[in-house]
């Protein structure tokens, strides 16, 4: 089994990384870092530039997270998937038979989250395995 973490550059994700490392260490299982790189919106003109820019952002973000996880002595796998974040996480969790999916939340009001479409919110509906939401530290 493994621990799957959805990671981006956000403050919530930074704290989620810490929690995911704790869990992975506690169970002695590998950590899977996932970044869903599909940009929002339909295809169309110059889609590819947008896509590349998002992927690049994902690589930078995951690069830093991998270093942190390796310092903690964890076996780490990185996945940049061509899917929306929530779908990417569910997909990766299935393939790595994950114990839990860890995500950072933006700690905002439920209404705002619903309007803006929050990944943890979507994930809770989609995921067949437990989801651990880590709020941002203030």
């Amino acid at each position, binding site marked *: 089994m493994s621990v799957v973490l959805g990671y981006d550059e956000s403050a919530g994700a930074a704290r989620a990384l810490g929690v995911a490392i704790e869990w992975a260490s506690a169970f002695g299982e590998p950590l899977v870092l996932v970044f869903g790189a599909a940009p929002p919106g339909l295809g169309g003109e110059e889609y590819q530039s947008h896509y590349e820019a998002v992927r690049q952002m994902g690589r930078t973000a995951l690069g830093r997270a991998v270093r942190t996880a390796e310092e903690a002595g964890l076996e780490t796998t990185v996945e940049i998937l061509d899917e929306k974040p929530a779908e990417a996480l569910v997909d990766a969790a299935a393939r790595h038979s994950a114990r839990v999916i860890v995500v950072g939340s933006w700690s905002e009001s439920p209404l705002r989250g619903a309007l*803006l479409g929050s990944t943890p919110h979507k994930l809770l509906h989609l995921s067949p395995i437990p989801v651990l939401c880590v709020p941002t530290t203030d």
Partner: protein
Amino acid sequence: MTHGVEREAQPPAPEEVGLKANAIGFLDALVIGLNATSPAYSLAAVIGAVVALVGVYAPGVVLASFVPMLLIASAFYYLNKADQDAGTTFSWVTRAMGPWAGWLGGWAIMMTGVLVVGSLADVAVRFGLLAVNLDDWADNEAIRQPLAVFVIIALTALCVIGTEASARVQRVLILAQVAFLLVFAIVAISRVYADNGLPDSIEPSWSWLNPFGEGGSPLTGGLLLGVFMYWGWESAVNLTEEVEDSATAPGRAGIWSTILLLVTYLSVCIAVVAYAGTTFLAENADEEESIFALLANEAMGGWDWVVLLAVSTSAFASTQTTIIPASRTALSMARRGALPRQFARINPRFRTPDIATWWVAAVAIVWYVVVNQISENALFDSLTALSLLIAFYYALTGVACAVYYRRHLTESARNFFLIGVGPLVGAGLLAWLLVESVRDMADPENSYSGDSWLGLGPPLVIGIGITAVGVAIMLVWRVRSAAFWSERRGVVDPALVPRKSAAGKES
């Protein structure tokens, strides 16, 4: 202990990008093809002016403007095959003809997007108000303009947030708008034949399809607006990817969306001319913005809101779909070092190019407000200026295609005509149109509103102004950052050139 495997599912390898068979359904593809041109908005914005320019020969002009579009679409298709990773005109022209031409092409695309947003929002608000019977509000600039600005801001926010909640709704609306337009055309034409149209209605005649009926200057003006009507259609061409070897849904949909578009434009155009008759159109020549609304009301009676709503939703939808490509062009240019880095910033939360998007909106709003203050007929002066820019970057793309593939043009008759001659002729036609229109517009008498700015027609001043600002920004940026200007011209990778052996598969 550690293995940093980067598993990249579905990598953007050249042969995998684009539309895979059955990757999208028939309806999706049809919608993509139609969405790019947004027929209801294009008709509502342009038909009054085209009819005012060329009278009963409007259908002919609409048909004729399709020809250069078809030829340029071939250029888009082949360039897209060769360089899918980076995007459209900006990237292609840079590769084929060097950074200077590429930068100007990118600038033209970005500006067309920026300029049209104001007009789209204006039409969306105007027809939206008409649809709910608030006719007074629609004609009142003090109400309409703030609403349009609000619409731009709200839709930009949606673009930044990247919400997709409305995607499904939009699909239904796009198909509905075409259906409504066709209903309007059928009702109007059948009323002409049943003799209960307007008193001056005339029965359609084949001679209307002759684009040269009105001759010279009106023709170039009409064709330029016609190009605007088909603007965006080239993205439908990329749907035809696999049409020859297998009857896949996207391929058929690409063709169907083209046919549907042509049929819709022609039938609505014929319906308008036939139903209203030339006298009515001449009498209402000052109200081009609302001629479509006026006719909808005349022909459909109490059901006119159906047509008005179709136009309004079409304009709403394309406001959003116009902001996105414009901001992505800015993103693409910034990533290559052709614009300041900040434009390439991706919002970590929403994963959209937020700075580029807000800039597009800000310039669009300023443009919309300013032009409405200084121009008698802002909408049409803007649209005509836009058409100049569109003709410019389409022509540039056509030339870039032939240049990029220059070593492979004589390999087969197919390459020679579809990649070489076709795009060049298309570029030539558009360049001719550009020169003729510039010459016409140099005389304010010929300009649409008849205004004179600095002794020239307003659209020309707008076009020249945008080009001048572009060149100025380009020169400043050239001095401040050399990165982009070190890019060199290249030719197509021979492996990507369509070959005879693979012809069946690749067409």
